[in-house]
């Protein structure tokens, strides 16, 4: 409902903008006040019709491009771009300082973000190309020397205005990435390819708009084309689901694999060339409505062949060398990472993402400083690695023993916190992992049993409360309360929570779509929140005085409450069936 209201408002503003100044001019006289038309000067032409068709196309493109700014659909498209930047760039992304906020991910969204604008450009340019027909000017234009081909080329050329707007959109996207959402990682060639694809999509929308106007001269044609493109594009782009499929590349917006794209070969430049070839072919098809000669035939065959060739090239499997390189990165991430070490804290990320360790360090400094010195002697490491091994390209999977690799990582889990890149809040995950590590709680779920992986319950254990207190250090009071209550984005008892029995989730679910290693009871959460209201130095000194006691599984939450004199509330639920106390 809100979207409909917002859409209506945007359209209303666009309509008012494009129809401003609608007072009719009175039918005045033929300016009788000025001298009669008897001067020869009036009949001396200032210009002759001696130009070229190419020149006419250029000038027409210029004029039509400027007219686009008066088109309601085009203006709505611009508003859509702005809305996308506000929603995804400012509101949504600013709350997500997660691993998915790499430049690689952000720029890969650019073509998707461009789709609404490209769609509205298609509608706007289609209306422009149909204008002469709609307003009964075709007969007059038919008496003018510019050919239909020149007019078609001019209309296609008017897409320059949309490309200018797209430049603004891309620049805004970069600016938000740099100044607002702190994107990290390198901007590689594939990411620049994503930017190129976004421009090509806009061009393709323009050429398709004109072709539709020529072959299907009805504005509904553009809308029908949008629906067909959305359905077909989505269907092809989603082939394979979470698993990598090269066939997706043939879609307008291929969905890239659900894993770290440092571990993928994304043929974006071939994809851009493929789309550009298709766009050019469609432009030739537009011209072919009126002109069918050898040149049009050659151009049509040429662009179609190019589309076929680039379409084929973008769906080729990765080379053996690439597969080996990526398999090595997956198997031994530490060997392919750059690490930042800070007095027992080691932060490692693939070399493409080195700058994320600065963000991690900023977040983890305070929690790590809250851990007792005797515990800090053992190093805590954060190592970026891929957890969705089954989603990797088959060529890479062929070179990896997934089972043994997974087991190896589980064994290292006590000190080695892998960072997922599927939307998880890496900063919060790291904080929580550090808290769990500080009191010897497990960082990964228990090994699979009959019911699959299972978290353990830390309900009633003081160390669970300490873990939460450590993890929340350095946060503002409000953030800490939200964090500990599990209601932060990606946490808590969300609808997307793990597939575990409902009565297990009476505490704290810490990763949206994964099995958590630990669950708290509501009483523990309340105790942690109460502890966070006290002076941190006082709490820290008390905990450090006997860290071994507060890390012991036998020390209860009630002992902790008594020690600090807080009065927490919260239900002390019985241990749900199937959950075991944390060892």
């Amino acid at each position, binding site marked *: 409902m809100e979207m409909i209201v917002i859409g209506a408002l945007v359209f209303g503003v666009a309509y008012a903008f494009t129809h401003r100044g*609608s007072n*009719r001019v009175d039918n005045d006289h033929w300016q009788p006040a000025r001298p009669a038309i008897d001067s020869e000067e009036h009949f001396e032409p200032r210009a002759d019709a*001696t130009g070229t068709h190419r020149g006419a196309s250029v000038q027409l493109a210029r004029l039509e491009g400027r007219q686009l700014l008066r088109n309601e659909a085009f203006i709505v498209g611009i508003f859509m771009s702005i809305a996308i930047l506000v929603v995804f760039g400012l509101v949504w992304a600013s709350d997500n300082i997660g691993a998915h906020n790499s430049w690689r991910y952000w720029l890969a969204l650019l073509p998707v973000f461009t789709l609404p604008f490209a769609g509205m450009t298609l509608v706007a340019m289609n209306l422009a190309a149909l204008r002469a027909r709609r307003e009964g000017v075709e007969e*007059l234009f038919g008496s003018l020397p510019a050919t239909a081909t020149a007019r078609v080329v001019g209309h296609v050329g008017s897409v320059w205005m949309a490309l200018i707007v797209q430049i603004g959109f891309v620049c805004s996207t970069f600016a938000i990435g740099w100044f607002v959402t702190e994107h990290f990682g390198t901007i590689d060639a594939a990411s620049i390819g994503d930017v190129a694809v976004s421009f090509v999509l806009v061009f393709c929308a323009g050429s398709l708009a004109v072709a539709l106007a020529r072959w299907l001269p009805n504005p509904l044609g553009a809308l029908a084309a949008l629906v067909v493109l959305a359905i077909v594009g989505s269907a092809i782009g989603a082939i394979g689901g979470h698993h990598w499929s090269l066939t997706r590349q043939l879609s307008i917006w291929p969905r890239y694999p659900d894993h770290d794209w440092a571990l993928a070969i994304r043929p974006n430049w071939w994809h851009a060339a493929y789309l550009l070839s298709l766009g050019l072919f469609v432009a030739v098809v537009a011209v072919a409505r009126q002109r069918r000669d050898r040149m049009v035939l050659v151009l049509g065959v040429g662009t179609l062949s190019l589309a076929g060739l680039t379409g084929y090239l973008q769906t080729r499997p990765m080379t053996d060398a690439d597969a080996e390189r990526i398999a090595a990165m997956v198997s031994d991430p530490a060997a392919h990472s750059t690490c930042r070490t800070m007095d027992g804290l080691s932060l490692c990320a693939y070399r493409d993402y080195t700058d994320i360790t600065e963000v991690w360090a900023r977040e983890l400094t305070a929690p790590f400083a809250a851990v007792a010195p005797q515990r800090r002697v053992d190093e805590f490491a954060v190592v970026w690695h891929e957890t969705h091994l089954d989603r990797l390209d088959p060529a890479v999977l062929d070179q990896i023993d997934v089972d043994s690799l997974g087991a190896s990582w589980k064994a290292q889990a006590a000190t080695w916190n892998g960072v997922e890149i599927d939307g998880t809040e890496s900063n919060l995950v790291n904080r929580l992992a550090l808290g769990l590590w500080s009191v010897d709680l497990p960082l990964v779920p228990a090994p699979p049993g009959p019911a699959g992986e299972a978290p353990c319950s830390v309900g009633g254990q003081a160390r669970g409360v300490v873990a939460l207190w450590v993890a929340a250090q350095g946060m503002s009071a409000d953030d800490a309360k939200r964090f500990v209550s599990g209601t932060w984005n990606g946490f808590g008892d969300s609808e997307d929570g793990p597939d575990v029995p409902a009565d297990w989730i009476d505490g704290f679910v810490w990763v949206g779509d994964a099995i958590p290693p630990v669950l708290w009871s509501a009483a523990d959460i309340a105790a942690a929140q109460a502890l966070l209201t006290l002076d941190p130095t006082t709490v820290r000194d008390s905990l450090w005085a006997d860290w071994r006691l507060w890390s012991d599984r036998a020390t209860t939450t009630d002992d902790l409450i008594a020690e600090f004199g807080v009065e927490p509330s919260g239900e002390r639920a019985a241990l749900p069936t199937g959950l075991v106390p944390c060892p």
Partner: protein
Amino acid sequence: MNESTTNESTMTTAGALLHGVSKRYGRTVAVDDVTLSIGNGITGLLGPNGAGKTTLLRMMATVLAPDSGEIELLGHTTAHAQSREAIRRRLGYVPQEPGFHRQFSAFEFVDYVAVLKLINDRRERHDEVRRVLDVVGLTSVMHKRIRQLSGGMRRRVAIAQALLGSPQLLVLDEPTAGLDPEQRLRFRELLSNAAHGATVVLSTHQTEDVAALCKRVVVMHGGVIHFDGTPAGLAGLATGRVWLADERDPSAQLAWMTGDGTVRHVGEPPVNARLDEPHVEDGYLLLVGASVLQESSWR
């Protein structure tokens, strides 16, 4: 020999040559085997609705191909694309129902037409657009959107675009429709100036315009030419057949009361009538009026 020489001369100097031109719409013959040679100056084309005038003009504007016959304009045949382009570069056309890009300003629309007229240089084109808008007296409103302009102003925009580049062949299909009397007078002034050295074909229902402007008049009816001569010659058809009487003759085919109370009769003399000077419209009415009235059941 002399006639041959005359024809040869006509072939080389005429702005428009039509030879055996016909056009059908289904079973209806809109233009039937018309042969016509039109030279410089203003030629009026008169005829009732459905006479075939617009079809003839559309063929002369190169937007409609004849079913048979040949059309040669400004020395180029309309049969080939290349020669059509050469014609169009020197052609100005006002369609009977000119459409407009209503969201455009008058300047933008005429500029758009100028672009399609292959006036590539932007500065020169803008100068030319301003010139033609000045000629039709729209300078003060040229940046208003066309949808804000009155019908008369829009008609002047249509005339302005036809004047771009001072074309050598002007094809005007009822350009004065919708203009008030003063605007029509201005239009006559404009057209008489614009016609210097150019061939102008003017289709109209206004016989006064023809009398005032044209050195030649062609009357079409039923797709064929019924008269081709001077306006005076057309008026001369009614010489001795225009009468003034005090009362209307009930048997008269064409009679109407004038402003001074007398009844003007065209055709057979009523009782106690006196002869009057014939006008162009009298000749036109005698030529086609009776049949038109019969066809349209006006009587």
